[in-house]
């Protein structure tokens, strides 16, 4: 574990806590390689699944010799195969994520690192991507404990998007669509985003529904968004599209904002719940450790 000790994304305390965890999914997927997950496939493990008659070509090692002795029939004993789990983390790296202290993006990266670490030590197949990646760009596939360093390197390389004249901000829906096109495999998808898209988040999340993945939406909001501390007459400028909103801060305005925010959060939660997705609201002030150990555990992402 010496390779991760120096990383600011994963602290030793967090690592020792994460070592005991594993990723969980309620759905059983078919993996690609031998792993530690129970798979739909029959194969080799200690867990008995079924019997069937021997047909030519079957592995003789699988014959149940005890049954043969009793019944004088060749019966093959089937076991459940244990395979790896596909674990995808999709990070929203839009400019709006570059706010707060720590920034929401930083927070998202920490969270991704923690979950990725959990996956790696359980030999799951971990892939971390961002929303702004094109259809062709793929993130590295990580597997095994030795890949932690690579994962952290990859995470550190993720920077907030730069907005240029020809390339505006990537809409949430487009990013998710690209992701789904890139990764056909089934597994767990964790979307870490602030869901602040003027076009709405609904379209984006619908892609996950059709994609048949076990989807977790971690909605990261900064303290400034939850409890805005604004005073006086202000012109609010949107950092992504330079949209302006003129406000005069007053108690009713702040109250109204909070109401709107609550409605927004409640709406997102309801949308996810209805579609079998998990919605978790995260505040950037809450330590990642606490989020993983308590909230995600309760929601069943880790065990």
């Amino acid at each position, binding site marked *: 574990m010496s390779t991760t000790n120096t990383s600011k994304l994963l602290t030793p305390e967090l690592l020792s806590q994460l070592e005991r965890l594993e990723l969980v999914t309620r759905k059983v997927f078919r993996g690609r390689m031998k792993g530690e997950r129970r798979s739909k496939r029959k194969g080799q493990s200690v867990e008995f699944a079924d019997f069937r008659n021997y047909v030519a070509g079957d592995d003789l090692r699988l014959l149940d010799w005890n049954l043969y002795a009793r019944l004088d029939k060749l019966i093959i004993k089937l076991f459940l195969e244990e395979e790896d789990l596909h674990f995808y983390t999709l990070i929203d790296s839009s*400019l*709006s*994520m570059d*706010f*707060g202290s720590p920034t*929401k993006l930083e927070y998202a990266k920490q969270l991704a690192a923690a979950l990725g670490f959990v996956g790696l030590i359980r030999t799951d197949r971990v892939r971390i991507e961002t929303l702004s990646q094109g259809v062709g760009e793929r993130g590295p596939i990580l597997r095994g404990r030795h890949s932690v360093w690579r994962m952290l390197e990859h995470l550190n390389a993720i920077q907030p998007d730069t907005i240029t004249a020809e390339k505006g901000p990537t809409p949430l829906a487009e990013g998710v669509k690209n992701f789904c096109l890139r990764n056909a495999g089934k597994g767990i998808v964790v979307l870490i985003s*602030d869901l*602040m*898209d*003027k076009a709405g988040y609904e379209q984006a999340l619908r892609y996950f529904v059709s994609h048949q993945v076990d989807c977790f939406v971690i909605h990261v909001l*900064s303290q*400034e*968004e939850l409890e805005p501390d*604004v*005073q*006086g*007459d*202000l*012109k*609010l*400028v*949107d*950092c*992504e599209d330079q*949209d*302006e*909103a*003129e*406000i*005069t*801060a*007053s*108690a*009713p*305005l*702040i109250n*109204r*904002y909070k109401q*709107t*925010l609550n409605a*927004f959060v409640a709406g997102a939660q309801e949308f996810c719940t209805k579609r079998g997705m998990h919605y978790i609201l995260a505040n950037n002030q809450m330590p990642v450790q606490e989020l993983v150990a308590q909230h995600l555990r309760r929601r069943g992402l880790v065990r």
Partner: protein
Amino acid sequence: MDSLFRNTLSPVSWILLGMIPPAIFALYFLKLKRQPLEVPSTYLWHRVLEDLHVNSLWQRLRKSLLLLLQLLMVALAMLALLRPGWQGQSLEGQQFIFLLDNSASMSATDTQSEAKRLDVAKGRIAALIDQLESDMSAMIITFAEQPDVVQEFTNNKRLLREALERIEPSAGQTALRGALELADGFANPDRVMNEEGDQSFEVTEQQDVELYIFSDGRFPSIEDFSLGNLRPQFLPIGSFAAQNLAITAFNTRRNEERPELQQAFVQVANFSEQEQKAIVELTLDKRLLDAAELTIPPNGIASATFNLAGENEGALRAQLDIPAEFKDCLALDNEAYAILNQRSDGQVLLVTPGNTTLQAALATERVNRLAKIETVNPDVLKTAEFLAKAQTELYDLIIYDQCVPRMMPQANTLFVGRMPPLPDWQQQARAEPVDAPQIIDWVRGHPLLNLLELGNVQIADSLLARPPLGGRMLIDSTQGPLFAIAPRDRYEDAVLGFEIVGTEADGSRTFNTDWPRKHSFPGFWLNVIEYFAGGQSASLVHNRPDRMMEIRVDGQASNLEVEMPDGTRQLVALEQPGRLSYHETGQLGVYQVREAGQVKKRFAVNLFGREESDIRLRARQETEKSLKTVDSLSIGYIDVAAQSPTAAVRRELWKPLLAGALVVLMIEWYIYNRRVYI
């Protein structure tokens, strides 16, 4: 000047002030250049603003709350500058003198709010001070027994108010004259003679000075006084209906028939229109001795006499127990104090080689009641012990019969047949006696010769007693003055030119005059004792508040302790041995003079003034009963009409307005800082 508004600013100032509200508007709209603030997303904010547009009018009002508050504050300030006020006169003039009566009667509580008259007067002076413009100056003088300049001319209102606060009620009597003279001194500066020419010019510019007299008017008119530049206004304080019961006299004396018996005499006056009953309680050193119920006719007096048989010395206190239904407005005069003294105070020394007629005349009962007579031989005069005694004011009077001391004693003296050893007397007197002078006139009005008929007195020979400067000739004869009196320091020396018993050349004694056979002889000696020794001791017992007290004390102590009625003690240095001058007699009650813890003397200070106790305002005589008006003051030959006692001063509104503006400012500040929560 009774208008609702009073302008305080010039047009230019108003124009400048009028520019403030547009400036606020302008600044407010300039301020609306909003500060940009980058946020992650305006997504939620837009939704918020859409919601809020529904009730936008209220929102807009709320947005400009600060603007409205600023405009309100400026409006309040402008209104305050207009000085709205109503119902009142304004002060006219440049200089003001407030004469405030703080005599005993001003402690009466006959006002509506049960406050003392003095406090009411102070309140009205404070209201006048508030009206002073910045170029007006004022001073405050209080007057009771003595006038006191509480605050000299100043235009600093704070100083004036502080001075006003310091004024305390006193127990003294009203003496307006001194205050007027003091005010006159400030208002009418003397003309100063130019040394080179004979021109006179004024030290300062002559200005009219407004003189406000706040008093209850209980003092006689003042004559021989020129007001000069003073323009008096009399503002009476008090009411016609004020009732008061007062002890106007309280003393002890010996019973005429039984001189060994002491009596206390109390006189109670009723200053109201109804007959009143009251109980007089007499206590000696806090022990109740006696009580008597008195029925006092309206505007009359009643008296009670208490026998003090078998009582020792002590402080007597008479207290008036007034029935509850009677509203006694002045509490100061419901108590009186007196000193009970068994021994007679007067000490008289008779120095004579032997004079039976004189000794007989001084041995009468009435003389003994007044003074203790000690007779010594002239030989004693030379002893050191006597010389020391003579210098300590032990004696009230020393009678030198046919003898002369080497030096004058610290006492009143009466020389019989000799001239005092003083150059003044010696210069005037002829050394040789004159023969058979015939008395032709004597000063009948002088207390020493009171009720005496001297025309029939025959005299063989006499020295001529010509008094020095300042003295007075009392008996004149065909040959010259026979009896004269002259002051010496604070004593008096009387000289009777002729001996009563003379000594012939052969040493035998013979009568020089037939006066001892006349009725006037014992009468004269009684007068002598009463004048020199008796009367003084009676006056020592009672004193008026705030007047200086002179007490004779025995012994050589240079420091004495005086305990005041409230228990505070004061160390007083004696200027001369045997004589205590004390002037801190502001409190009513019994003062004790102590030497080394021992009570040496007591004296009582009482109000005893009909004018002070009669606290009703003086009504003008000629008007009808139903329409009482306050009598005017008469100063010099000018009648100062009383202003209406309820004449209100202008009530100004600018203070609450400014306070309101301040409150608005604070609200604005609060909202500005905490507007997020409003």
